[in-house]
């Protein structure tokens, strides 16, 4: 693995200052920073070969289409999907889940059917299913969590039934950091022939993702959370599902024949890619994935585990600091509150010290409700963070306690 200075050197923004202090960026759960190679790739598209894909007869359109399809291959290889036809480019995790919730609902869901999610979900993996349930008269079931922030697996098993049509859970919780036992969740559902969607928004960037080994039916993730550009994401789906499901958007490129009487759809993956897609984003995403592969995903996982252990230890030593989410397996994300101090006050003062954290409900209000709180402060690390930055966070927190205590 590259040494930490080399790694940090790859990310130009990490050199900047905020309020004349070095930036300590601990909001990676919201979005990750971009290495120079990704920034260069985007510039390169627009300066060297920008043209709309799949449409032109001219050279630039060929170059652009080729780069886009190569990007699809990069994503396929990164998540070890079987076929490039199973990789759909979307706007992000939210776009992917909404698409499947809509198409799956239209095709398979009828009144009284059940959809299972967990109590740990981000709103993006709650609301699309709720909308679908309302439309179809289906019922949303929620796997409860224990005090540590882990799903109660026996409750999930009890919930699975002949009424269950699909299970959709996060690979890891954005609010608490809990890693969910997705393989076990999937295998239990499969024993009843129920498909499973995995929301990989907080999983893709923290280790090796192998959709065939996991055996999920759908996998959704966002480019911007894995060091790529924003506005691009991916929906992986097993071919047997994608072939059967109707498209979730109509428009150009997704069609075969269009007459006013009837339209026939293009083949996979284009059936699900209506309109001009974010091809520069896809190309940038592929470069980001290559970058991550270059750093080494196992090394990333190990380094992040080390940071998580160090940060958990240091924060646990702070008097009056309470950590929410104490699962055995966690991504490097720590949600906490300081006794009697509002999360917003904590976040504002940390910001003034150059430390970027997130405060609030983290788009996961049901999780906050589970603990009877209105929000938390969330520090989310990744492999370019350092122990010194965690020390700065702790020093910042101690200052906050003095100010408000």
């Amino acid at each position, binding site marked *: 693995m590259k040494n930490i200075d080399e790694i940090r050197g790859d990310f130009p923004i990490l050199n900047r200052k905020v*309020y004349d202090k070095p930036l300590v960026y601990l909001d990676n759960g919201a979005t990750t920073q971009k290495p120079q190679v990704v920034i260069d790739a985007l510039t390169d598209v627009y300066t060297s070969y920008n043209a709309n894909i799949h449409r032109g007869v001219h050279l630039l359109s060929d170059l652009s289409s080729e780069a886009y399809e190569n990007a699809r291959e990069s994503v396929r290889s990164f998540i070890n999907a079987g076929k490039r036809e199973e990789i759909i480019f979307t706007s992000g995790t939210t776009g992917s889940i909404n698409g499947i919730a809509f198409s799956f609902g239209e095709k398979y869901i009828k009144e009284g059917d059940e959809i299972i999610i967990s109590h740990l979900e981000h709103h993006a993996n709650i609301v699309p299913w709720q909308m679908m349930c309302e439309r179809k008269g289906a019922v949303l079931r929620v796997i409860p969590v224990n005090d540590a922030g882990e799903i109660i697996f026996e409750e999930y098993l009890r919930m699975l039934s002949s009424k269950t049509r699909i299970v959709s859970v996060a690979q890891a919780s954005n609010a608490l950091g809990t890693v969910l036992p997705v393989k076990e969740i999937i295998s239990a559902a499969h024993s009843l022939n129920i498909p499973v969607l995995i929301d990989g928004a907080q999983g893709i960037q923290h280790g090796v993702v192998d959709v065939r080994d996991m055996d999920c039916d759908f996998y959704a993730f966002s480019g911007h959370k894995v060091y790529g550009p924003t506005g691009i994401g991916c929906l992986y789906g097993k071919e047997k599902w994608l072939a059967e499901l109707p498209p979730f958007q109509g428009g150009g490129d997704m069609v075969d024949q269009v007459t006013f009487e009837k339209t026939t759809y293009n083949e996979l993956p284009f059936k699900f890619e209506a309109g001009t897609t974010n091809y520069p984003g896809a190309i940038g995403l592929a470069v980001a994935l290559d970058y991550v592969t270059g750093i080494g995903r196992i090394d990333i996982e190990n380094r992040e585990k080390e940071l998580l252990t160090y940060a958990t230890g240091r924060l646990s030593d702070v008097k009056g600091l309470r950590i929410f989410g104490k699962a055995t397996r966690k991504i490097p994300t720590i949600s906490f509150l300081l006794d009697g*101090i*509002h*999360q*917003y*006050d904590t*976040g*504002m*003062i940390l910001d*003034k010290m150059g430390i970027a954290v997130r*405060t*609030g*409900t983290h788009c996961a209000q049901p999780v906050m409700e589970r603990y009877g709180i*209105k*929000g938390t402060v969330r520090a989310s690390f990744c492999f370019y963070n350092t122990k010194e930055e965690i020390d700065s966070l702790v020093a910042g927190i101690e200052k906050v306690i003095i*100010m*408000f205590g």
Partner: protein
Amino acid sequence: MTINEVQDKIIDDFSFFDDWMDKYNLLIDLGKDLPVIDPKFKVKDFLIEGCQSKVWLHPDFDGKIITFTADSDAIITRGIVALLIKVLSGRTPQEIISADLYFIEKIGLRQNLSPTRSNGLLSMVRQMKLYSLAYNAKGKFNEIRK
């Protein structure tokens, strides 16, 4: 003092400090001095919901001036709430409607009133002006009826 005189006084108070920590400490103290809102007004009807922090605002109109009481669950927000109350409470609806709140920017707290900071403060200013518009309209209506 006029609204602008109060604003100038606040700017003067804050200009005393160069360090942001001192400014925030002043805000924290201001928040502590904020007159307590009657608990019966800390309900949904008077809540201005922000994504990050909450603000409760209650108007009391005696036919001439509006007296505002308010509170927030976050201390820094409460400090800014206290400043807004200092400037706008006890004024006529017309004064409040036409007030130009330049002090926020001058004391370096503009970011706390930007629409991207969903702490309820921007909505609070809007709500204060909306109450004033309503009372102003009501006043005119009563005059016509006389």
